């Protein structure tokens, strides 16, 4: 159903926008023509509940005119509309020029000529018929609903394909295509005493095609087979005693801790105060670059927009900057930030490292998160079982659930899908009502070991929110299993006064 605008028309639309902008005297201009198809299918207890198939077309033009940014966009992808956008964007720049205190500068980026790039996938998940999606989720639901102790099952799949055309005055003309998919299944067991327990699959969203649901990149059969017994065990498990525990954290949980406490904290726009009104700032301010002890010496965190199947991976970002990889934390020290061209210039960097993104052709690009990943131990490194073997009294945390962190990225609290008690180096049944709280540098400073490459998983999310108006970005985070000592564990029921 989603018909892409013919490339000859796209070229004409982009040329019309840039030509008109040039004639209006802009110092910088970039235009994006995009088609984004997003689908959601959701089943409740095997019956179809939600089905949507939404294709967004649009063209957005950003200009810099006399030191001010102006942005205008329309869903009307036509030559006439694109030319009008130039006048609207320059008009917007003139309006804010009367208000601004300082002219805006963008870090320079060379032109990259004509670029064509596609993410790595076999079958576009949005091209799979909706009936086939419903059938797959129905089959998965039936497998669980037939199991003893499972009262309800919800199953979802979200599928997105993006076709993005970009051109700027530096001479970069890029055509990029990305797909991503996120299936998930949650089983619910009602507690005869009141309340319930739920358990969701831990399979992360990925930059892959429909082949992901066929087992390429995740063992769905094994996880679905294990879910009923794990949920029954969780329902019967004791409530955790609050206190200090050593945690072995699986990458299916640790990715979110990385996202919140490192990913957002090392965004330079936050560190400079550009997000102070909404998403927040960062404790990791530029004056601490190179000196802030972020975590233990084994901590090595990278940013990249290049990882295969990464949700933030591209070839060219939404400001025409080529994708890169870079260090954020090395040997436990803060050594880098994620940049766009405006923040790079403001902080004295020669060049952006390519972290600009807009979630829609109708939104202005802002600095968004790269794939921010904790690197595994060099060489073989320990397995998860070996990390667990090093714990006398602790908890093995698997899967993400609830998350929250303050606006400077110090104080966080996370829950998870499965919590296994560790006694004398062995798993010893599950626990309920576990939440762990920490302060970023203290937590990462207590990380004693990371697992080897065999424990590494690229997880992530479709829905990282930031900016005003709000934008939602997909992002991946690679993580190994990790051992963190002496973490504050809460009993969530007790926190609720029960």
């Amino acid at each position, binding site marked *: 159903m989603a018909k892409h605008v013919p490339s000859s028309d796209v070229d004409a639309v982009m040329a019309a926008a840039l030509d008109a902008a040039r004639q209006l005297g802009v110092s910088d201009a970039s235009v994006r023509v995009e088609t984004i198809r997003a689908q959601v299918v959701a089943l409740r207890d095997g019956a179809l509940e939600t089905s949507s198939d939404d294709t967004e077309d649009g063209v957005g033009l950003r200009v810099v005119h006399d030191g001010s940014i102006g942005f205008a966009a329309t869903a009307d992808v036509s030559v006439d509309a694109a030319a009008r956008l130039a006048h609207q964007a320059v008009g917007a720049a003139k309006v804010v020029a009367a208000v601004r205190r300082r002219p805006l500068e963008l870090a320079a980026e060379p032109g990259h000529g004509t670029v064509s790039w596609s993410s790595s996938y076999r079958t576009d998940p949005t091209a799979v018929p909706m009936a086939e999606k419903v059938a797959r989720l129905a089959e998965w639901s039936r497998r669980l609903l037939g199991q003893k102790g499972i009262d309800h099952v919800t199953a979802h799949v979200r599928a997105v394909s993006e076709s993005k055309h970009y051109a700027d005055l530096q001479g970069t003309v890029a055509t990029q295509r990305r797909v991503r998919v996120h299936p998930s299944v949650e089983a619910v067991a009602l507690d005869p005493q*009141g309340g319930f327990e739920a358990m969701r699959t831990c399979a992360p969203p990925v930059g892959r095609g429909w082949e992901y649901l066929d087992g390429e990149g995740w063992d769905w059969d094994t996880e679905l087979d294990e879910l009923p017994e794990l949920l029954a065990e969780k329902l019967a498990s004791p409530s955790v005693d609050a206190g200090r525990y050593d945690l072995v954290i699986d990458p299916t949980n640790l990715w979110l801790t990385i996202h919140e406490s490192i990913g957002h904290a090392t965004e330079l726009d936050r560190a400079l105060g550009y997000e*102070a009104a909404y998403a927040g700032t960062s404790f990791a301010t530029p004056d601490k670059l190179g000196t802030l002890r972020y975590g233990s010496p084994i901590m090595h965190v990278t940013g990249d927009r290049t990882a295969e199947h990464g949700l933030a991976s591209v070839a060219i970002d939404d400001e025409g900057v080529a994708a890169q990889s870079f260090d954020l934390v090395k040997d436990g020290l803060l050594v880098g930030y994620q940049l766009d061209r405006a923040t790079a210039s403001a902080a004295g960097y020669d060049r952006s490292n390519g972290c600009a993104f807009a979630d829609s052709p109708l939104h202005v690009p802002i600095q968004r998160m790269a794939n921010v990943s904790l690197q595994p131990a060099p060489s073989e490194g320990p397995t998860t079982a070996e990390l667990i073997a090093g714990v006398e009294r602790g908890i093995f945390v698997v899967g993400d659930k609830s998350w929250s962190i303050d606006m400077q990225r110090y104080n966080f609290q996370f829950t998870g899908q499965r919590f296994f008690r560790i006694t004398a180096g062995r798993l010893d049944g599950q626990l309920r009502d576990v939440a762990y709280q920490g*302060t970023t540098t203290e937590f990462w400073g207590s990380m004693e070991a990371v697992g080897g490459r065999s424990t590494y998983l690229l997880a992530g999310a479709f829905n990282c929110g930031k900016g005003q108006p709000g934008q939602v970005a997909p992002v991946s985070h690679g993580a190994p299993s990790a051992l963190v000592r002496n973490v504050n564990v809460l009993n969530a029921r007790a926190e609720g006064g029960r």
Partner: protein
Amino acid sequence: MTGSQPGLAPPADVVEAGLGAARCAGCVVVVEDTSEAEVRFAVNTTTTNGIRRARRVTVASVAEVDGGLGVGVATRSGAVDVTDLVRAAESQAYSAPVADDASPLLGGVVDAEFGATPPETDLSVLSGVLSGLSAVFERAERARTVLAGFASHTVATTHLGTSAGLRRRHVQPTGAAQMVARTSDGANSAWVGVGTRDFADVASEALEDELVRRLGWASRRVDVDAGRHTVVLPPSAVADLMVYVAGSAGGQDAEDGRTVFSKPGGGTRIGEQLSSLAFELRSDPAEPGIECAPFLTVTASSAEASVFDNGLALDRTSWLRDGRLEHLQYHRAGAVRHGAQVAAPGDNLVLELAGAQGTTADLVARTEHGLLVTCLWYIRVVDPATLLLTGLTRDGVYLIEDGEVTGTVTNFRFNESPVDLLARTTDVGATVRTLGREFGDYVNRTAMPALRVDDFNMSSVSPAS
């Protein structure tokens, strides 16, 4: 606020063309035209801005399939070939399973202005804010404070038609202005935000005055430990909590035993007293100052709302009444299935205690000892069975002693259920329009009172400032 989108067909014509092209048992066409203008600022200067024109066309097609009715839904933006879109939706409908939410499509109402051109907005609507902003930045720099904020205005026009004859049109203006001031050392901050229809009632100087007043409270810093405290929550913070109460009011989820409104052993808690205070939590399209669409628009079915119910007339719906759980959200088919009343999610939210009087300042004056918590942030569900939420305080927590604000205290992480909190409320102010600090960008139309709540669980201290 005038205009139309050049290059795009009139929305009423798109609706008629879509319905005219339909070949199966039923069809709904929704055209949503949106015009937006916004300016963002930070570090005492403007940063980004935008002017946008969008159109989304959604077609829901209903087809007879083996055993009942199937539905297919397709949405496309821009200059849409609506016949193509209808065919895509019909193709999905014919291959869909029987829809659990099927009900007869609605007809019978034709709005007189259905053929009117959608109005638009532009940056001129923000002139009242922008005109004073440069001087506000200058004064902030002199006072060694750093300002950041956002002003936005949206006009969204919905045209909705069904093959049963319904033709509805609604124009929804939505505006908001927010401003944060931080001292240059980063030690203190304050936030103000207002919702508006047209910015006629918003001036940057007024926002600045309130920020200056709040930063003035921070001249004395007091150490307060985590633990359970009496708190005064202004309307903005109450709004961010009540959004979760309304968002957890899904009838099907409650019937399935999965929410705070599920009754142990089965069924729902409708009729149960949740607070000894006679609170009403309601959505009402006619609520003065926060009026919203008097009919339902649904572009994808969910557990609470069905595409079959497009055009359903909305009226005042009390989620809580006299402190009792009154309604949960059911679409028509779900209501029949569970013997419940139809209740659709609303586009505004009001919490009120009849007869309650006073502003946040009045509640502070009526409080012997406690904390004034101006903003809540990063609020997320920890336990849906109790609606236990976690989150942080932000941009100003102040000590109240003998009815006065006497200093600033640290930020905290809290773990609290807003349902439990209504049962521990000890003082309530008058309901006023407000903008939630966290969710105001998404739930703009709220009216809330200030509340004083005992034993609010501040779980730990946050060093953030």
